[in-house]
């Protein structure tokens, strides 16, 4: 579920950060920039794993910033295909029984995980097992979708203050399945 990605970047330390040790200041700067952000085709960055290399700090002529070229490892959330992970059901929209329902699962706020499942479970025709919202489920990752938000047009001023609809799409979503024995709500398999 977690990978380590090696990244090189230029870190600029402001003079007001000089009271920190260099390592702490660099780590803070990187975390500020990367944590909780999705890099397309890499995954969701969590935090710095370690710093492997840092150049001498060069002070800029005008601003007094210290410029350092840093190479570091980043902890990244990126479940691979076929991996089994667990999540909490956040919301589900369904058309009814025997209809495939879309279940949106969220493991944490910024990335929503979506899964498709079939309502009726084959093993027992009498009992119907429901997926309740906020229940913990296990699912298998099938595919991942990346989305880059293109810049939007500036709003033209109108007289009526109509609220504009903002569509939000997750930059990184994971599509999974719960249609196999062992998957689905974890309590079924205890």
């Amino acid at each position, binding site marked *: *579920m*977690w*990978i*380590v*990605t*090696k*990244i*090189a*970047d230029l870190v600029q330390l402001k003079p007001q950060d000089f009271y920190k040790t260099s390592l*702490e200041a660099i780590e*803070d700067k990187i*975390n*500020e920039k990367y*944590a*909780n*952000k999705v*890099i397309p*085709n*890499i995954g969701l960055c*969590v*935090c710095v*794993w370690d710093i492997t290399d840092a150049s001498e700090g060069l002070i800029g002529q005008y601003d007094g910033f210290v410029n350092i070229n840093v*190479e570091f*490892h980043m*902890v990244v*959330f*990126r479940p*691979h295909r076929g*991996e*089994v992970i*667990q999540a*909490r059901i956040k919301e589900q929209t369904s058309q009814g029984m025997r209809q495939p329902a879309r279940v949106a699962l969220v*493991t*944490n*706020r*910024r990335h929503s995980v979506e899964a498709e499942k079939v309502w009726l479970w084959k093993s027992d025709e009498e009992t119907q097992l429901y997926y309740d919202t906020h229940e*913990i489920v*296990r699912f*298998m990752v099938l595919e991942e979708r990346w989305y880059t938000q293109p810049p939007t047009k500036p709003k033209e001023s109108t007289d009526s203050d109509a609220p504009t609809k903002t569509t939000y799409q997750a930059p990184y979503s994971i599509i999974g399945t719960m249609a*196999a*024995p*062992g*998957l689905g709500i*974890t309590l079924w*398999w*205890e």
Partner: protein
Amino acid sequence: MKILEAQSAVLTNYEVYQHLTDIRKRNNSSQPKRRMPEDAFRLSKEVLEYLETKPYPLHDQKEKQHYSQTTLELLCEKLAEKFPDITKAEGLAIFDVRPTNIPVLAIIVESLEDRYTEEEQQQLVDLVIEVLGQDDPEPEEEEGEEGAEDGDAVQSVETTNGA
């Protein structure tokens, strides 16, 4: 920003958990207390909460300490000894999910039934329980007993008072 290696290693849940708790401990013990930048702090908190959700095996890590630095090595050794066909990815998933019964094991290990006999499957589950531990069976009953004990205690107190 330049990506040098998209994936230079894979981490287990335990390693991430340990890394984040270490950072937190270090930050709390330094004088004055440090704090990660806002986004990193919030995300790491959420990741820790996520990893501590049942039935992930790390949910009772604080009390039970089932996992430690050497656990992964131990698991790999034992798997290599008894089940050499288990692949690295499967071993990693076993370490992360800790399957303590066969249906859960079957989703992690591909075509489990074709590769192993039922006896071997059970052996694999036993090995997992031996190395990684398991949840306490049926905690509800224990709670019931505790409640009963409490009741007894209250009663005995009352009787002593009455006497």
